[in-house]
C-alpha cells in the first residue's frame, strides 16, 4: 500500500512539475532556432531535445521524496513520523474473585524513553517506550486484563488505541507498540544529510584503514589496467579477424561463445585460477573488455567502404600503409563506441568483483559497510560509483568528439 502511495505521489509530482514549468514559460518568447520551429515533433525523434528544467525537477523531486521519508531537516514537508510524546490507555482487569477494576497506563514514547512524572495510584502504571519498539507492560497484582479502552481483549489479540496498538501475549501480558508512521528508520534509508555527513567524515578519516581516495583510486586503477590490457589484445585481434579469413574462422567460435558470458559468471573461476588479489581482478576486467573491444575493432574493419580501400590501392598504397592510413583511422569511431561500452562493463564488473574479496575499493567499501548495517555508507558508495561511472563516460565522449570529429558526418 505504501509503495503504491509513493508511486502516486511521484506521478503527481511529475504532472505538477510539468504544469508548473508550462506556467513559468507562458508568455516568454519561443526560441526561433530550427528545431523549435518544427511543427511536427511527435514522431520526429531529432526534434526531441531533453527539457533541462524537467531534469532539474526530477532530481529535486527525488531528493524531496528521500528527505520527506527520512525526516530530513533540509526538506520542509515530511510524511508522518514515529509517534513521540505522552499517551495513555485504560484497561479493565478481573481479580481472582471475579471483581472488576479499572486502571490506566500512561506511556511516554521517545528516543531515550524516560518515565513520565506524576503520582501513581494503585491501578495506574507508567511506562516508557522507545520509538519504534514494543514494550511489555507489568501490571500491578496478578489481575487478568479483560478489556482495553472498553474493547474486549484475549490472549493473542490486539486493540488499536490512540497513538499505537496494545496487544496481548499468549500468556496474557499487555504489550504496547507506538505508531511507527511512514518514515524510514536510518537503518533502512538514512537521510540525505546523514549520507553527506558520512561522506565528509570518510573524506577526513578514511574507512577501514584506507582513505576514500585510496578506495576509489584502487577501483579506477583496476579498471584502467583491465581495460588497457583488454584493448591492447582485443583491438589487434579484432583487426586480424576483419582482415584474415583464417583468423576469423579460428577466433569466431571463441569470441561468439565468450561474448554472451557475463563477466560476473567468471568470478568463481577467476578466483580459483588467479586468487582473490589484484591479479584475479585485473584478469576479470581484461576478459570483460577483451570481447567488446575485439568485436568493435572487427566491426570497424568491416565498416570501411570498399571504395576507400580500392582508392588507396590505386593510389599505390601498400597493405601496411592501407592498414595504417585507411583501416585504422576509419575504424576509430567504432572503436570509441566499443571503448565506451567496455569502460561501462569494466566499472560495473570491478564493483562486483570487489564485493567478493578486496581490501580496498569502492565495492569493498559498500559491502563492508553493509555487514555493519551502515546504510549511510552504502548509499554514499552507490552514489559515488554512479557519479564516477557517469564521469568516465563523459570523458570518453569528449575524447571522441576531439579525436574523431568526422564520426557520423561522412
Amino acid at each position, binding site marked *: 500500500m505504501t509503495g503504491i502511495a509513493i508511486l502516486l505521489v511521484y506521478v503527481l509530482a511529475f504532472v505538477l512539475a510539468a504544469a508548473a514549468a508550462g506556467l513559468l514559460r507562458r508568455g516568454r518568447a519561443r526560441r526561433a532556432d530550427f528545431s523549435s520551429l518544427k511543427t511536427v515533433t511527435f514522431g520526429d525523434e531529432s526534434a526531441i531535445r531533453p527539457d533541462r528544467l524537467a531534469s532539474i525537477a526530477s532530481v529535486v523531486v527525488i531528493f524531496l521524496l528521500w528527505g520527506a521519508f527520512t525526516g530530513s531537516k533540509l526538506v520542509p514537508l515530511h510524511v508522518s513520523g514515529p509517534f513521540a510524546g505522552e499517551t495513555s490507555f485504560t484497561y479493565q482487569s478481573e481479580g481472582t474473585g471475579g471483581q472488576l477494576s479499572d486502571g490506566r497506563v500512561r506511556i511516554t514514547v521517545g528516543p531515550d524513553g524516560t518515565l513520565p512524572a506524576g503520582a501513581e495510584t494503585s491501578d495506574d502504571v507508567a511506562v516508557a517506550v522507545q520509538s519504534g519498539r514494543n514494550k511489555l507492560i507489568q501490571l500491578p497484582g496478578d489481575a487478568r486484563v479483560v478489556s482495553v479502552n472498553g474493547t474486549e481483549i484475549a490472549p493473542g489479540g490486539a486493540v488499536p488505541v490512540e497513538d499505537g496498538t496494545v496487544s496481548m501475549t499468549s500468556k496474557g501480558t499487555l504489550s504496547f507498540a507506538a505508531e511507527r508512521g511512514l518514515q524510514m528508520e536510518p537503518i533502512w534509508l538514512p537521510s540525505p544529510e546523514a549520507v553527506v555527513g558520512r561522506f565528509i567524515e570518510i573524506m577526513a578519516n578514511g574507512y577501514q584503514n584506507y582513505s576514500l581516495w585510496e578506495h576509489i583510486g584502487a577501483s579506477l586503477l583496476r579498471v584502467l589496467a583491465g581495460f588497457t590490457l583488454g584493448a591492447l589484445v582485443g583491438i589487434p585481434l579484432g583487426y586480424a579477424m576483419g582482415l584474415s579469413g583464417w583468423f576469423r574462422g579460428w577466433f569466431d567460435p571463441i569470441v561468439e561463445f565468450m561474448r554472451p558470458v557475463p563477466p560476473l559468471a567468471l568470478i568463481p573461476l577467476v578466483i580459483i585460477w588467479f586468487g582473490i588479489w589484484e591479479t584475479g581482478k585485473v584478469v576479470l576486467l581484461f576478459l570483460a573488455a577483451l570481447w567488446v573491444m575485439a568485436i568493435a575493432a572487427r566491426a570497424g574493419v568491416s565498416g570501411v567502404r570498399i571504395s576507400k580501400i580500392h582508392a*588507396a590501392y*590505386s*593510389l599505390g598504397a601498400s597493405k601496411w600503409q592501407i592498414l595504417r592510413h585507411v583501416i585504422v583511422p576509419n575504424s576509430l569511431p567504432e572503436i570509441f563506441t566499443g571503448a565506451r561500452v567496455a569502460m561501462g562493463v569494466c566499472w560495473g564488473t570491478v564493483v562486483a568483483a570487489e564485493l567478493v574479496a578486496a581490501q580496498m575499493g569502492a565495492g569493498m567499501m559498500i559491502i563492508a559497510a553493509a555487514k555493519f548495517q551502515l546504510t549511510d555508507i552504502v548509499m554514499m558508495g552507490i552514489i559515488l560509483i554512479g557519479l564516477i561511472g557517469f564521469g568516465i563516460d563523459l570523458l570518453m565522449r569528449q575524447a571522441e568528439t576531439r579525436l574523431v570529429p*568526422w564520426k557520423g558526418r561522412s
Partner: protein
Amino acid sequence: MSGLTLNNISMRFDLPNGSHVQALQDVSLHLAKGELLSVLGPSGCGKTTLLNIVAGFLAPTAGEITLNGHAVRGPDAERGMVFQEGALFEWMNVRDNVSFGPRMAGRRKADYLPEVDRLLEIVGLKDFRDKAIYELSGGMQQRVALARCLANDPDVILMDEPLGALDALTREKMQALVLKLWKETGKTVMLITHSVEEALLLGERLIVMAPRPGRIHKEYRLPFAELGAGMDLREVKKHPDFGTTREDILSMIWNMEEEIMGHMEPAS
C-alpha cells in the same frame, strides 16, 4: 604496344545454386595514350565489372589486359581511379587527401607539395586545402577526388560515374572541368556513366555495351570532346549531330532494356 589493351576479356561468376552468370563475353578494346573513352549501357551490362577488371580489383576468367606492353595483375598507381562518392579519407584534410599517393610512395614534401597546391588551384580548392572533407559540398569533394588522382600522375584514369551523385548544375560545371583536365594533362581516360549526354560530351570515343552477356554493342567516334575543349558545353549540345546521336543511343539502350524486361516476363 603503348596504350591500354583489353584482349578478349570474359568474366563468369559461379552462383551458389550451381548456375553461373556470364557478366562479360570477349570484350576487346584498345585505348591509345591520351584517348578518352566513355562507356554506356543499360544497368547490368557489366560496365562496372569491366572497369574493376581494368583497375585490377577483379581477375577476369579469360583474357588479358596490358598497359604499355605489360600485363595488368592487380591494382597499381599507374591506373588511378575516381569513384562516385565516399572514397575520400574523412580523417585527412583536403591537402592530405590530394597528396596521399605521393606520400605513400615516400616522396619528399618539397617534391610533391608544389604540384599538389597547383592541382588544388586548378580544381578551384586552393582556399579549402586545410578544410576537413565533411565540410565540403558534394561537388567540391569530387574535385578533391579528381585532384587526388591526378597528383599521383597515373597513366590511365578510370572513372566510375564520378559525377553521378551531383546535382544537374554542379554536374555541368564538373563536366567542363573534366574536359579541361583531360586536355591539359593528356591522360588516357576511361569513363563510365549513365548519362548519355555526358558520355557524348566527354568521350572522344564511346562504346555502348549490351547485357546478357556483357559485350560491346556499338562503338562511336565523336567530335564533341574536341569541340568542347574550346567552347561552352551548351553550345556543343546545339550541334546538329549531338541531338541525333543522342536519340540514336537512347533508343538503342531503350530497346535493350525492353528486351531484358521481355526476357524476365516468362520467368516470373
